[in-house]
Every structure is written in C-alpha cells, then in structure tokens.
C-alpha cells in the first residue's frame, strides 16, 4: 500500500525505536505533525523554542547512548535550531534533525520561510540530506540514523520539502545500510597497540589522558580496568568526566584551563602520554609550543583519524574504537610478560602527591556569603549515593560543577564543552529527565545562562519534569567578569546582570517551586528540601559571592604549568 511521506517519516522513527521527538510545529511540517497526532508509538515533546528542542534531543542522547531526534519547521525553525546543532556537532553527539522545507517546486524562489537549510547547516553537521523524492525518504532516514550513531558520532540533518510529505509510495524500512563512501574503522591495529604497550611499560612518568570519546564510545569500564591494572595516574577532560571514577585514588581530576594543579603538572612533565578519545584542544593543553618544551612520547587512540596529529605530533597513532582498543590493550597486557617500572612509578607518585598537597581547589569555608563551591560540594554529598545526573550551563558555575562534583560513572555529567553554549542546562536536563524519569536531575547554572532558555520552564510544567535548578546567582556573567578582572584592568564592561527577575516568583508563575537561599547555613537544608520534592521542579536561587573566581586557571596562550593559583 502506498502511504504519504509524512506517514513514512513517522513510521521510520517508530521502527527505529525512537521514544521521543523534541520539536515545534510550523507550516512546512504540518503533515508530519498530523501523522504524529494519529499514532502513539512516538511521543512528541513540545518545547518553547527550537534551540531547546535540539538541546533536549542532545541531552537525551548524552545520557541514553541513543540518537536524539528533533523536528522543526523550515526557515526560522531551522535558524533557531542551528545553535543546538552546532553544539551537538562540537561534542560529537548522535542526533537526527528533521527539518521541514518549502515544496520542491518553490525551492530557490525565496519562498515564504525558505532558507538553504543544507547550506546553512553543512559546516555543523556530520552529514545532511535534502530529500527530493518520497521514494528516497525511508532509506535516507535509515542512513541518517546509521551515520549519526557510528564512527565518531554527530548530528545528521534530513531536510524534507512539504510536497514530499504528501507524495505517496510503498513503505519499506531498510534493515541495514551500506555506504561505500563511509566505513568507520573499529579495530585498532594490533601492531600499533603492541608498540604502545611497550612504550607505556618503559615509561618512568606515565600519564593517561581520557576524553569525551570514552563516554561516547561506552569505554569507561575498559578504561578503568586498564588504568587500575597499571597503577598509572589518569586525568579526564571536561567532556570525559565520569569516564574514570573521580574518587579513585589514581584519578587526578580534570585537566586543562581550570584543571587541577596535579593533573596539569603531570600532563606537562610525564614522559609517556596515552591519550584516549581526546583531542588536545586549546582549553586542554594550553599553548602547544609550551607543551612541547618538555620531551615526551605520545600515544593517541581515537576513532576519528583526523583528530590524530591535528594539534600535536603523535608518536604512536592508533585509529579505532576506544572500547575495542582498550580491551585489546588489557588483553595483550595480561598475555604478555611486560610489566610497568614499579620503582619509577613509585617515585612519580611521590611527585604527584606533592603536587596534590598544593590543595589547588581550596576555598574559604568560613565565609558569611555563600561560596558557590560549597553549594556544589554539598549537592555532591547529598546526591552521590543516589541515581543522579548533573547538567550545567557555561561559565564559572560549570567549572565549579566539574571541579567539585565527583563523577564516578559515565554519562552523569552533561555540558557543552566544545561550543560552550549558554542556555543548554535546562533543555539538557529535560531530555535527560525524559530518558531517566526516576533519576535526580540537577541543572547547575548561572543567572545569565539560565535566562537564555528560561522559557523552557513552561515545557517542564507541561511534561511534569521535576528538575532541580541550582542557580549560582552572582549577579554577573561571572566568567566574563573574571577575565575582565584578570586581563582587562577590572573594567567590567557589560558583564553585570542588571534588572534580574525575582526567580522565585518567576518559577512560581510557571507553576513550579521557587526558593531563595542567602546564607551558607541554609545550603544543606534547602537542597534537602528541594531534593525531597520528588514531583516538583524546584528553582533554587543561591545568592553567591560576587567576587569569587575559578582557580586554578591557565590564562589563554599560556602553558599548562603556568597556572594562576589561589
């Protein structure tokens, strides 16, 4: 039987096992919405802005390891979605974005709500398609899911003109896809792996640096086993937190611009570095010239060959799926006779302990004003033994969350690392809460970031998403203010957040619970009270120290070991 393109699209989603579509309707996608309306296999979540639809789908994908799906209309629907798509692209998140387009005969005529969607999004998607014939629709959607979720994942966009949604053909959802031009490498080269292992065993000062690829590649267990079997120190990037347990004695915490003193010093001074699922970006290694002042051998494992030797020269490149490669490394290690140099390792740990003793994350615990670090630390203490997911926005609060919440498991820490998009925190929490309805979902944010997607409080009400918002309210775009304090002679140009709303009343007006917390002694009781409100969204507005800064800090252009410390 022939069915319409709209029905085909919805059936593809259902057959792909899609639980939720995050979206917003409009002219070009009306037929698609009509088909969504007629069925109940795929649930639609109506957001209040297309940017949030994409972020929510992205958040869903990050916690569930399944591609997120969103649907927006042509023209402004697409342009609103672009920030979300670019955010997901930078963090390699599997996602399928369905966009409406003007009818094929109107393309190129500057039709109402026409934009060149494929052109606009080309640089920020893994791939995109314009479907011009309904006969290609099902196969294209299948390809989109396949490309999005294999190799180095990423968003794939399918642009569907309105007339394609009304044209008819037989529906067949392909079982599998083969693309001659797309064959991601899975297995690492075993000879290279052998070389890497012997290099690691010769190391006097080894270091393991693990990135977001560990999370995306579901390789946390393999990494943890490998690191523990060697007794080497391990650091995680912002995107890799939870890939190796933060509470493990071998963890040096996060590295990079706001990484720990010990992680950055060990990175700088190690003699053999194993990088897995990480990409040596500028926020991680600081100035590459400075990084190379020290002599070290580098082994780099990544599923994306173009990540290897992009910013730093590598001695042993290994292209492959990180899970597979780490498992193979453990296997070869167990089978072989090579052992780490125990005496050297002991001396290395002695050095690391000295760095640790610098206590780089200390802050004033006796302050009469709420210290943001204290809020995160208390939140961690209260939630660490329960099923908890933390999302964040972008700024100082994000760094404090990353530093003070100890993530022991993967996919528990959801933030925009690559693009650094303010406004992601709340929609990320929405997508994550839908994927894990019974878990605690806490969004750690700032008063500037939260206002970038504040309209989603309404979505949270509609779908009863009991997210806990921890607003670290310093009345400043804190991270901007910090840079202005350090590098622009204390001239706080446009970083003061004037005319803030009363967040308590704002939350209440959306039908949620609002709280304002002004004293350090109230942090714990307030968090406990909020967490106990299992069915309610609670907006906790913490009035925090305006002058607090994030330390350590590697200033832009400086070397990793040139940190500003408290």
């Amino acid at each position, binding site marked *: 039987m022939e069915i319409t393109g709209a029905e085909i699209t919805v059936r593809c989603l259902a057959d792909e096992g899609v639980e939720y579509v995050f979206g917003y309707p409009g002219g070009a996608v009306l037929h698609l919405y009509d088909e969504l309306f007629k069925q109940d296999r795929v649930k639609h979540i109506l957001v209040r802005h297309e940017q949030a639809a994409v972020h929510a789908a992205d958040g869903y994908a990050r916690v569930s390891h399944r591609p997120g799906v969103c649907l927006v209309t042509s023209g402004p629907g697409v342009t609103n979605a672009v920030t979300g798509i670019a955010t997901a692209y930078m963090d390699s998140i599997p996602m399928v974005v369905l966009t409406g387009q003007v009818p094929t005969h109107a393309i190129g005529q500057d039709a109402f709500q026409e934009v060149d969607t494929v*052109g606009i999004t080309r640089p920020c998607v893994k*791939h995109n398609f314009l479907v011009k014939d309904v006969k290609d629709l099902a196969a294209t959607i299948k390809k989109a899911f396949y490309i999005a979720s294999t190799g180095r994942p990423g968003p794939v966009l399918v642009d569907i003109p309105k007339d394609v949604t009304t044209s008819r053909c037989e529906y067949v959802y392909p079982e599998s896809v083969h693309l001659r*031009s797309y064959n991601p490498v899975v297995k690492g080269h075993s000879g290279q792996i052998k070389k890497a292992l012997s290099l690691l065993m010769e190391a006097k000062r080894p270091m393991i640096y693990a990135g977001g690829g560990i999370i995306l590649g579901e390789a946390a267990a393999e990494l943890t086993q490998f690191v523990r079997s060697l007794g080497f120190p391990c650091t995680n990037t912002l995107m890799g937190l939870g890939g190796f347990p933060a509470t493990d004695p071998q963890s040096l915490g996060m590295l990079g611009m706001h990484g720990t003193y010990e992680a950055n010093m060990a990175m700088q001074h190690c003699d053999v570095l194993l990088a897995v699922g990480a990409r040596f970006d500028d926020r991680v290694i600081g100035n590459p010239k400075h990084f190379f002042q020290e002599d070290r051998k580098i082994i780099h494992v990544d599923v994306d060959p*173009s990540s290897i030797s992009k910013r730093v020269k590598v001695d042993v490149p290994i292209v492959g799926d990180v899970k597979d490669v780490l498992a193979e490394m453990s296997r070869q290690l167990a089978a072989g006779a090579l052992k780490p140099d125990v005496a050297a390792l002991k001396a290395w740990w002695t050095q690391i302990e000295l760095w640790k003793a610098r206590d780089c994350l200390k802050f004033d615990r006796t302050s009469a004003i709420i210290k943001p670090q204290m809020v995160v630390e208390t939140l961690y203490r209260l939630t660490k033994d329960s099923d908890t997911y933390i999302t964040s926005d972008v700024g100082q609060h994000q760094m404090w969350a990353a530093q003070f919440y100890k993530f022991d498991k993967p996919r528990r820490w959801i933030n925009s690392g690559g693009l650094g998009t303010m406004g992601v925190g709340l929609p990320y929490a929405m997508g994550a809460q839908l994927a894990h309805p019974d878990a605690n979902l806490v969004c750690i944010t700032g008063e500037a970031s939260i206002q970038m997607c504040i309209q989603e409080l309404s979505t949270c009400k509609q779908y009863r998403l009991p997210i806990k918002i921890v607003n670290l309210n310093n009345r400043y775009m804190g991270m901007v203010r910090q840079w202005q304090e350090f590098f622009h002679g204390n001239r706080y140009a446009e970083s003061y957040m004037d005319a803030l709303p009363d967040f308590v009343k704002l939350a209440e007006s959306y039908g949620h619970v609002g709280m304002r917390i002004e004293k350090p002694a109230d942090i714990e009781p307030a968090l406990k009270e909020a967490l106990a409100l299992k069915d309610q969204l609670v907006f906790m507005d913490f009035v925090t120290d305006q002058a607090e800064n994030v330390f350590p800090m590697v200033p832009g252009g400086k070397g990793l070991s040139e940190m500003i410390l408290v």
Partner: protein
Amino acid sequence: MKHIIALLLENEAGALSRVAGLFSARGYNIESLTVAPTEDPTLSRMTVVTTGSDEIIEQITKQLNKLVDVVKVVDLSEGDHIERELMLVKVRASGKDREEMKRMAEIFRGRIIDVTDKTYTIELTGTGQKLDAFLEALEEGVVLETVRTGASGIGRGERILRI
C-alpha cells in the same frame, strides 16, 4: 609545498560544496579545483591543487576522507603522476604580431582554434608550469583574455584510482 590531490566522490548534489566548504572553513588553500563525472555516472572525479606543510596536507586528506560523500582520496604528489591543464588564450594578432604569435603557439605546441583579423585564440595543454611559461613568453599587452581549467591529475603506470 604544492600537492595535487585526486578524489572520487558520490555524484550527488552538494558534494562539491562540501569539499569547497571544507577548504574555506579550515583555511586551507585551493589553487585550483576541477570536477566532472567519471565513466561510472554515480561517481565524480575531482582534482584539487593545494599548498601546505606536510602536517596540513595530512589533515586535508584526513578531513576529505571524513566527508561522507567522499569515496577515495589520493595525494598524487606522493608518487609519479601526470598533470595536465587546458588553457584558452585570446591574443592580439595584427600586423607584425601575427606571425610571431603563430610561431609562439607552435613552439609551445598550442593550436590556434579561432581567428579574426585582429586576434587569435590559442588552445594549450600541459602542466600549470608550462602554461605559465607560455604566458610569460608573450610580449606585454598582447594577451586579451585567458581561461584555464585548473589541473587534472592521474597516476603514472599501474597507479590506478578507482573503487
């Protein structure tokens, strides 16, 4: 250094803009780019002439390979290869210049393919260097118009790029 990179890509709408977009977004140089379908109509063959350090060329080939529409990428400069470019030049050819022009075309094995009282249009193929040399050999002011295709490249001998 100059590199000549050959690609096979899906003959899909937009494939060319993905390649061109990659070069501009990542700040790579393009000296020339040619593209046309192959004997297999589902595939296009592209030749890109670019310059850059070894690291940059390595990134270019990796990034090209990463494009979903790109089936194969070869840096022809890594081995023996042949490079050809076609140029059409319209030159002033009147009076005493007329004979001289004809002679120059012959020396460079060009062909005069269009003639008027005052002009010749000369067709010339060869490496980019040869075409440059021809233009340099002409007297100043005689060139009225030039159009060049950019280089096409192919491996020598048994070096074959196909799927």
